[in-house]
């Protein structure tokens, strides 16, 4: 199993732990990743909110590079994933968009490169059974709230690997890793995304609501698969508590970090120490359960 990997800008900065853990988990599971050479930014929200042409052309340039390498693409960032899929969707669906992308990039592109999210690859390509077989240290006793956010499942005609309102692939993955995924209603509610830069007060209101609901559902931690979700939910907990009332700090881990722990990979290789809310008590609980304790005292 081999993919051209599109890391995206966040994975080089605020989402370093997502980059480390995605690569480590793929290596451990026999998925080979080759970075798209000289990849460029997908443009993200600033591009699609500023220039329709730029929003198609920047992803198209990256997809042309993957096509030259003859490989399907794997993406970790949910936003990059949605931008690359959207460009393909439009280039395939509208001849004028295809021509425009080709004029701007200066190269032919038919929209034919397959773009998959790491979750999609793990659950629908590799499958929970093959993952379960490689679990060395099950996440026994951990109650995880799987948070999908917006762009992994919406809009469904563009991303389409799980149900847009009630997705389950991350829950399946966490079950394979030995954790218990809690039932909760905010799996796909928005965290405020890039409003973090312009209106952090709104992000605090939204993340406070999410974190309190996860707490109410009995979760020990949140699992996420998007750099912006992770930063908004992890880094602003103190601000959210100050603005909207205190709550118990809740570790927010990338789903690949949790899976990596279950596969027995070392914490340093997964960027576990680079989270704002430390998952130390969480991991102590897992170890206590594994040692036959009564569930730890997290």
């Amino acid at each position, binding site marked *: 199993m081999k993919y051209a990997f599109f890391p995206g800008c966040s994975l080089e900065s605020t989402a370093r732990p997502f980059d480390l853990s995605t690569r480590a988990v793929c290596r451990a599971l026999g998925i080979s990743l080759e970075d798209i050479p000289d990849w460029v930014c997908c443009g993200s929200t600033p591009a699609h909110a500023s220039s329709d042409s730029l929003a198609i052309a920047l992803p198209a340039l990256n997809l042309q590079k993957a096509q030259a390498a003859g490989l399907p693409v794997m993406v970790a960032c949910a936003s990059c994933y949605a931008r690359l899929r959207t460009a393909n969707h439009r280039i395939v669906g509208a001849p004028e968009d295809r021509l425009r992308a080709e004029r701007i990039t200066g190269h032919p592109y038919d929209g034919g490169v397959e773009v998959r999210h790491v979750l999609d690859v793990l659950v629908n390509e590799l499958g929970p059974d093959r993952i379960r077989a490689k679990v060395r240290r099950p996440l026994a006793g951990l109650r995880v709230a799987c948070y999908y956010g917006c762009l992994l499942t919406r809009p469904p005609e563009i991303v389409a690997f799980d149900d847009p309102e009630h997705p389950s692939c991350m829950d399946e993955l966490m079950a394979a890793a030995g954790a218990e995924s809690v039932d909760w209603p905010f799996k796909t509610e928005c965290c405020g995304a*890039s409003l973090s830069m312009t209106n952090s007060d709104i992000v605090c209101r939204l993340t406070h609501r999410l974190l309190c609901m996860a707490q109410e559902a009995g979760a020990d931690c949140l699992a996420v698969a998007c750099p912006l979700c992770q930063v908004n939910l992890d880094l602003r907990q103190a601000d959210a508590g100050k603005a909207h009332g205190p709550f118990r700090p809740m570790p927010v881990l990338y789903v690949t970090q949790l899976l990596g722990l279950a596969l027995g990979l070392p914490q340093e290789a997964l960027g576990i120490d680079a989270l704002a809310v430390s998952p130390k008590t969480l991991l102590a609980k897992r170890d206590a359960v594994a040692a036959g304790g009564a569930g730890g005292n997290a």
Partner: protein
Amino acid sequence: MNRGGSSGKGEGDMPQSIPWNGSGLMEEVRRCGGAQVSACFQCHKCSTGCPVGPEMDFLPSQIMRLVHLGAEKEVLASRSIWLCASCEACTTRCPMAIDIAGVMDALRILAIERRIDLPDARGKQFHRSFLGSVRRHGRVYEMGMMTAYKLRIGDLLSDVDKVPQLLAQGKLSLLPDRSGDIRQVRGIFRRAEEEDGKP
């Protein structure tokens, strides 16, 4: 909460005196990549599920109606179009399959194109700073992008408390990481501007 003077969100709070003015706003939205707004029959499903509804001056369904009416001034100067987080919940749930999030994009593009006096320039300045960084480096250089943005909005202090931790954890870098394909990226920005300027 910021609610503009002429606006409101409850039943009957829509400005009453906006006649259809045939401004062609619906066609302009299409030209900027937006969807066909005329299919909207005001079911308000988009507004019900919008995460930023409480902060908006006009709810998404009200924006759709104002576009119908050609109410350029109200729509293009609204806070709502800049508060949309592009979460795509409205687009996913619209029974008429209108890409409402895409319409919000088109309205933001139009507001900039027509040099509308924005009620809050933070969204515009963030997009400008972000794309400036991409144009310069081929990738986002977070430190440079955030500094440029904060200088533009005159607010250097918010969130600085988070910088030391991010630096210590290797999540912010003092130097940019450049794509090797920077010449191509600059050409793309130039040609995209030409394409957008085409009638």
